[in-house]
């Protein structure tokens, strides 16, 4: 394995882990409500920007991070309570427009509250690069991949072992049946938005020391997260992780070997090609329409 290849691979896995976290957020909300939450990227932005603010107040980094994640989760709960829940029964496209409206609102508020400058979050454990054979790695990359791994393990425990997680899964399979079995579907919906928002915020905080953060970072990261979720197969947890990592690696390889201006084009061409052959993503089930 050449040094260059290893370097690109590490860069791709780092950004891919971020995409995976955002994609998981998309999938969780989609499972619980069949809504594609286009405001998902804004949670990423809120996570990063709130951390910058709290650190600016002189808070220690771990406290600032905790507060930022909690803040984003509250915004997620509010979004469900005040925008998605009252619109119950609206068509899928109307719900998409509602979440796009919410993302514009949040971005507008962020630009008022935090201004339009670019900010940096301090790296969690210094900036001294680690050499890995012939490639180098910033310590923050290890944080990104490590925290993502821990979150994926936590999530699989949550969905497989806890009552609330199982209730979420049951609701995603059949909302009415879940309700009949005594599951509080409204609570499940709230939890799914809060959880997704927290995941998004964690992604935003993890990546902020590497790529910086500003009021509008949510747009592109949200889009990539959606692309990753689709690539892996919407609603599938392992699919979201796989889709995110793949998207990150494709981008990094495309930028490194072909053209950095066209790295996003390369990524989207690959996604289109995958969808042509696997219309429900890499791990998507074939579903049939009910007449």
């Amino acid at each position, binding site marked *: 394995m050449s040094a260059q290849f290893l370097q690109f691979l590490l860069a791709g896995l780092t950004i891919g882990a971020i995409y995976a976290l955002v994609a998981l957020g998309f999938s969780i909300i*989609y499972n619980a409500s069949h809504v*594609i939450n286009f405001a998902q990227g804004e949670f990423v932005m809120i996570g990063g920007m709130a951390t910058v603010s709290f650190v600016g107040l002189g808070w220690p980094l771990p406290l600032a991070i905790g507060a930022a994640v909690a803040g984003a989760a509250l915004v997620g709960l509010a979004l469900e309570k005040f*925008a998605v829940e*009252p*619109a119950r*029964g*609206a*068509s*899928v*496209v*109307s719900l*998409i*427009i*509602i979440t*796009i*409206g*919410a*993302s*514009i*609102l*949040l*971005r*507008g*508020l962020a*630009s*008022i509250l935090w201004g339009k400058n670019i900010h940096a979050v301090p790296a969690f454990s210094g900036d001294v690069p680690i050499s890995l054979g012939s490639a180098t790695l910033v310590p923050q990359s290890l944080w990104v991949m490590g925290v993502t791994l821990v979150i994926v393990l936590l999530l699989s425990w949550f969905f497989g072992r806890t009552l609330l997680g199982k209730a979420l899964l049951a609701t995603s399979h059949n909302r009415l049946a879940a309700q009949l079995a005594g599951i509080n579907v409204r609570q499940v919906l709230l939890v799914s938005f809060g959880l997704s928002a927290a995941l998004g915020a964690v992604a935003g905080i993890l990546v902020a020391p590497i790529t910086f953060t500003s009021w509008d970072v949510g747009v592109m990261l949200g*889009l990539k997260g*959606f*692309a990753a979720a*689709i690539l892996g197969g*919407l609603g599938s947890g392992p699919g979201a992780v796989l889709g995110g990592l793949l998207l990150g690696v494709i981008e990094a390889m495309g930028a490194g070997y072909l053209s950095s*201006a*066209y790295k*996003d*084009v390369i990524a*989207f*061409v690959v*996604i*289109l090609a995958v*969808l*042509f052959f696997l*219309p*429900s*993503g890499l791990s998507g089930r074939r579903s049939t*329409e009910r*007449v």
Partner: protein
Amino acid sequence: MSGTNVASRMRGLAVLAGVAALLPLVLVNNYYYEVAILVGLNAIVCVGLNLLIGYAGQISLGHAGFFGLGAYGSAVLTARYGWPPLAAMAAATFAVAALAFVIGRPILRLRGHYLAMATLGLGIIISIVVATEDRITGGPDGMAVPPLSAFGLTLAGERSWYWVIAAVLVLSVWLALNLIESPRGRALRALHGSEIAAEVAGIDSAREKLRVFVVSAIYAAIAGSLMAHYAGFITPAKVTFFHSIELVTMVVFGGMASTFGAVVGAAVLTTLPQALTVLKEYEMAVFGAVMMLTMVFMPRGLVPTLSSALNGRRR
């Protein structure tokens, strides 16, 4: 039944033409004309997009790509190769239709959010290519476009442009209304309800979807081409993902499956940001809030909600 449909259709068209004819009475200066022209151009795209989204039930998050290719096609052919504007417009529109035909075949097999992703990807690919190939398109700085001229006449000035755009809009609406009431339109509504049921009833749903996809791309390309010649300048801003989202929002906001809803949606969402500029830094937040609240309280969109409220009162 169909008699009353024809009557109400013609009444709607007459109202639209009447509004377009009387609007100049309140357009007191060139800036107002500019906004009105912008509304008209967006409305043309939305009327086409509504055929796809509202009637056939297929989402597209990439129509700014078709709009942009129409605009850049016209711009490049006239400015770089010296083509006459009308020929450039026709060639650009034809190229966009061909692209939509080729790409539509595999893309339209996808459903729901997967189709949204594929069209979004297509739009983003087009926008990145336009912004990157700066030797042809001028890159992010954009490029100048010669004015629209034919038979020795040059179209210039906001007022003349207003009438041209108004005429094209009325024509687009008329064509769309006819399409909707034709067997083709009924086929589209059938496959919106259920593709399998439509196929059982003998509708080739793949072909119908492809056809309406191409038609909506043509609407977008023509509007883009007109926009390039009107503005005399084009930048990649009109080709972005945001613009695609804006267009879909206009359709849904006005009311899906309502041709006049698409026009109203384009009018409201094009003028709203202009009106909101007085709010300065609060503009964006208020715009988002208005969009969100309207859809929360009127999930079917402005025109269907208001018209059923009016009808309810009349009865």
